């Protein structure tokens, strides 16, 4: 049986304290790209009690995603945004979720992201990452951007880190391991980077701005 909203909230307050819970539960976080990074960021943030998640991805679940992304075999072919929303509501049923199946462009970026306090960049292609980073920093300068670069391959997990580039721009990853030149993406190293991003989101909401 699913716990009541009050039981759920009480449990989170027991874990995080009421001050942190208030900050987490009143926050809106947008996650752009719902692959290995985005789906794992979403699970971590939903568990932590983030109040509202905006999940954005135009793509559908493919069999080649399942080795690192938080989808299930029977969700192949579904829109990632909708499948992930379902999975998150099984994990954390009182999360408010907006699932968006549009592709983010320079034109629709502001309307899709304007309600978010923090934007997570979780795309796959380097060009898309740069497009979003520039777009958010140029068009939504009072939001926080938590982006990722470099998490592919079998290199040591210890080079995945978080760097504060500017006041509102955080970058997670090793910044060198390109999915195109390495052996590809492996769940734990991608999850590490996603965990850096999710934890950075929580730290920003907690008022801890340094890395």
């Amino acid at each position, binding site marked *: 049986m699913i716990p009541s909203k009050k039981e759920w909230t009480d449990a989170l307050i027991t874990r995080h304290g009421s001050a942190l819970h208030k900050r987490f539960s009143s926050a809106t976080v947008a996650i752009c*790209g719902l*692959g*290995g*990074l*985005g789906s794992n960021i979403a699970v971590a943030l939903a568990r932590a009690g983030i109040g509202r998640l905006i999940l954005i991805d135009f793509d559908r679940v493919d069999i080649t995603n399942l080795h690192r992304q938080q989808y299930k075999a029977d969700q192949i072919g579904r829109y990632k945004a909708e499948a992930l929303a379902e999975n998150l509501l099984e994990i954390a049923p009182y999360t408010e979720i907006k699932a968006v199946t549009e592709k983010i462009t320079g034109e629709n970026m502001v309307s899709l992201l304007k309600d978010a306090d923090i934007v997570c960049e*979780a*795309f*796959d*292609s*380097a*060009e898309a*990452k*740069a497009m979003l*980073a*520039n777009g958010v*920093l*140029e068009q939504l*300068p009072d939001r926080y951007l938590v*982006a*990722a*670069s*470099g*998490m*592919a391959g079998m290199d040591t997990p210890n080079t995945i880190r978080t760097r504060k*580039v*500017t*006041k509102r*721009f955080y*970058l997670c*990853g090793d*910044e*060198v*391991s*390109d*999915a*195109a030149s*390495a052996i590809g*993406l492996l769940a734990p190293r*991608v999850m590490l980077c996603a965990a850096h991003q999710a934890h950075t989101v929580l730290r920003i909401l907690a008022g801890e701005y340094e890395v």
Partner: protein
Amino acid sequence: MVKVNGTELDIAGKTVAAYLKTTDYDPKRIAVERNGNIVFKSRYDVTVLEDGDSLEIVSFVGGG
């Protein structure tokens, strides 16, 4: 001198676009901060680097 990702370079007087042309950076994969502020993509060719500037170039790699 202009500090680029921590290294002092003698590029004051050049535009951001002109400096980038002398590097291997792919303009489609980067974000450029100057003294802590984003340099708008549309202004790379009119933003002139000044002595004492600090430039931070983030070059994204693929994977996610």
